[in-house]
Every structure is written in structure tokens, then in C-alpha cells.
């Protein structure tokens, strides 16, 4: 399957709440205090997507909060059991530099 199409399907599944999580991802989620609501929000506001060749996973980065100030991300794969989240993390977002005038 086309990687981009796969990424779209993963995002759709995560937004709809129809996905699976590895126990590793769940442990990381609990450790990092990220709620399920925040994962869905990261998917909804996702502004960066990358296919990680070395890990064979899709990486998504978005915002965790309604104010769009806190970043977060997750890596996921699409297989026969559906969208599976491999890991979840918080991401500090760099402030956009002021461009002169």
C-alpha cells in the first residue's frame, strides 16, 4: 500500500478512536501522562508526517492541547489487525522566529 494512503488511514482510525496500542505504547503513555483524548487531538492537529525507514513506522507530530501550545507525537503502523500505535511521546515545539518587520 502507498505510504501516504497508509498514513491517512492511520490518522482516520486514530481520530475515530478505532485503533490498537501495544503494551509498550500504553506504558509510555502512562509514564508520560498522556490521555487518550490527547492522542486523538495529536492526530486531528497533525502537521508533520514522516515514514521512518529504519523503524518501519509512520511518525506523526501534532498538538496535545486545545490552545495548540503543547506538542506531542506518536508512531504507528498499519497491518492486518488495523492501526497499531507503537509509541507515544511529548514533543517540545520550537517557537516560530519573528521574521523582521
Amino acid at each position, binding site marked *: 500500500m502507498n505510504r501516504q494512503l497508509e498514513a491517512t488511514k492511520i490518522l482516520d482510525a486514530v481520530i475515530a478512536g478505532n485503533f490498537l496500542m501495544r503494551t509498550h505504547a500504553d506504558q509510555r503513555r502512562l509514564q508520560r501522562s498522556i490521555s487518550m483524548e*490527547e492522542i486523538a487531538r495529536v492526530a486531528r492537529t497533525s502537521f508533520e508526517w514522516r515514514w521512518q525507514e529504519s523503524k518501519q513506522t509512520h511518525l506523526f507530530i501534532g498538538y496535545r492541547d486545545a490552545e495548540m501550545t503543547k506538542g506531542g507525537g506518536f508512531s504507528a503502523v498499519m497491518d492486518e489487525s488495523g492501526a497499531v500505535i507503537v509509541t507515544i511521546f511529548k514533543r517540545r515545539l520550537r517557537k516560530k522566529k519573528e521574521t523582521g518587520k
Partner: protein
Amino acid sequence: MTKNFKGILNLNYIEIKNVPVAKSDKHGILVHASVQSEMEKIAARAILQRHLPIRGKEVHFFRKVLGLSQSQLGAEFKKSAIMVLKWEKKKDVRLSLPNELAVRAVFSRLLGLRFDLAEEFRALLDAKLVKSLVVDYAEECAQLEMAGVAVA
């Protein structure tokens, strides 16, 4: 297949038993997202129903489970986000009784629980911190289904 989970978000004293999981050859044990969300809500309901004291970390937990921002939660009390921030900053400090009652009333409403002010007041006077809170996922889901609430 079921599994027990210890600790939910920032609350390490909660243990949820008999959570349905699936096994995959490639990924190991998998948990469905709807089950995860339900686990968080079950834990939140258990805290309110068992009249456990509300501290900063519990306020943070409830807010995260319901997906509210600090300003959205503050608006529920007609207060600013700073008020919520102050509560959450003091992780292990219990809220004052009037604030705790207000927080309980708001979260009970948002989680679809019954709230009786007189009953809550009496229960909160004797409320004590617990070392562990064990909740059975299957039992809670069965109770919710009996009450007519859709569960994952």
C-alpha cells in the same frame, strides 16, 4: 484474554483488573483505544464514587480524562485558568472543602454521575487517602451496561 493495569496517567495507586486485551504475533499484547478510554473514565468514576480526597493530581487527572483545557475547566466554576493551575501545581495538597465540593459537582455532572450535596459533604468529612484502589473493569462495565450507559 485479560490483563491487570497498575497506575493510570499520574495516579499510581489505581489498579484496574481484568482489562480485555488481544495478542498479536507481531506486536505482542494489544489494547483497543476504546478500552483505554473506558479505563480512564472508570478510574475517574471510582474516585468520585468512593469519595477519595481530591488533590491537585486528581484535578489534573479528571481534566485530562475529559479533554478539557485549564481555561475550559475554570469556566465551569466561573473562575480563571490560573485557579485551576494553582490547584494542579500543588499535586499532593487536598483542595479546601468548598472547592472540593465544587470540583466534585462539576466532574460528577461531566461523567454522568449523581451528585447529592448533603451526602457528599458528610462523606468528605471522613474521606481518607488510600494506598491502592482496585477496580474490576468487567464488573464496572457490567454495572454501566445495567445502568444503560454504552460501554466499549
